[in-house]
């Protein structure tokens, strides 16, 4: 019987270590100490990070685009996720959050209550955002209207309904290293920040492995099926991506493709966001795209 007791103790240790390794992480307040919020820059961050695309209400108009009441649904092989209310309402939204709460959500995928968020919230990209930008974004979000719409529940079946397991996903796939490595020009560095941290382009344009982790290397940005089941997201690497840098800048500005069709689907919302950025930022994103593929 002794071996059984030993086995049980070993199992307990493994579980305890596993839970400890996969616990929802947070940072201490001193990380953001001394950073002075700049809501104007926060507005740029807001557009660059594309917050409104997912958190605006269904069929938003120009008037309701900044009412971040949530409710859009995102079907995937793991279940259907509902975007939460991130308006400034202190009860229904995130009006009660500190800048540190926002940092922990964006950088660690951890809620103020200490729960794991599902990676449908693209903290796998946002984890690369700079602390100052998060503080600025927090200041800007406070200026947006409050909306009392309660959060809709995700429709995620077992086993994906177990959020504890998301700690394992984070252990495997969440890190804030840059994907594009090497000596980059200032423009490419800016492009990399906009693409890999804020724009979270890879979340749609890169294929995923069986566990939903983004594939990097030569697969990075090489297109992927739409998790909603219909169609696919375009390959941004050559030869499929044959647009010139100025074609890309025009697309990010006006939405016009080189054939003078317009951006469709979710990309139309991305273009709406990018139109708010300075032209130099759109050019930096175009430069990043033209620097693909990675080795």
């Amino acid at each position: 019987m002794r071996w059984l007791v030993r086995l049980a103790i070993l199992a307990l240790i493994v579980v305890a270590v596993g839970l400890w390794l996969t616990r929802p992480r947070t940072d201490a307040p001193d990380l953001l100490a001394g950073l002075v919020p700049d809501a104007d820059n926060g507005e740029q961050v807001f557009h660059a990070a594309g917050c409104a695309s997912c958190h605006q209400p269904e069929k938003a108009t120009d008037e309701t685009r900044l009412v971040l009441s949530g409710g859009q649904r995102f079907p995937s092989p793991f279940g259907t996720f509902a975007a939460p209310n991130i308006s400034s309402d202190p009860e229904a939204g995130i009006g009660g959050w500190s800048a540190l709460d926002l940092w922990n959500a964006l950088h660690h995928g951890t809620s103020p209550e200490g729960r794991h968020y599902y990676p449908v919230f693209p903290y796998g990209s946002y984890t690369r955002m700079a602390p100052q930008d998060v503080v600025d974004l927090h200041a800007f979000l406070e200026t947006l209207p409050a909306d009392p719409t309660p959060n809709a529940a995700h429709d995620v079946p077992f086993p994906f309904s177990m959020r504890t397991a998301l700690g394992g996903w984070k252990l495997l796939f969440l890190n804030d290293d840059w994907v594009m490595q090497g000596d980059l020009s200032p423009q490419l560095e800016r492009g990399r920040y906009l693409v890999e941290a804020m724009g979270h382009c890879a979340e749609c344009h890169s294929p995923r492995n069986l566990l939903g982790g983004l594939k990097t290397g030569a697969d990075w940005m090489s297109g992927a099926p739409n998790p909603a089941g219909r169609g696919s997201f375009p390959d941004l690497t050559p030869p499929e991506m044959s647009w010139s840098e100025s074609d890309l800048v025009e697309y990010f500005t006006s939405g016009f493709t080189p054939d003078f069709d317009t951006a469709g689907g979710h990309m139309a919302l991305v273009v709406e966001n990018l139109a708010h950025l300075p032209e130099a930022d759109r050019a930096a994103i175009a430069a990043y795209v033209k620097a693909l593929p990675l080795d």
Partner: protein
Amino acid sequence: MSFSRSLVLGLSGAALVAGALFAASHAEKNPAVEARKSLMQLMAFNLAPIGAMAKDEMPYDAETASTAAGNLLTLSRVSVGPMFPEGSDSFSRDDTRALPEIWDDMAGFSAHLSDLTAAAEAMVTAAGTDLDALKQAMQPLGGACGGCHKDFRQPE
């Protein structure tokens, strides 16, 4: 004739008729659908020189730009009502991405067309001014096109 044989014959006959009806409803071109696609092509054709100038792929020329912008404005004013008859939506036909929402919300659809006319008017002025003005006018013009596509065109 046995019952099973007549059943088989009857079923295959029904299948043939259904197949023919299906083919007729899908393969036959609808002039209204073709007309609105042509209208889109005419718009794209006239956007091409303006876009090439905005992208610095072609030297700015006020006359060429103004002519193209004028054509766009004219095209934006075409009465498209007859091009959208009942039953010519993307749920009824394979050869169109025009969502049924167009017919549910004709007022919203018309509002988008008015936006396009306003953006084209602004482009006419900008195209005759200078290259900077032309570049500035691209965003609202693309926004007008994309705004309608976002609401009323089925994504690919």
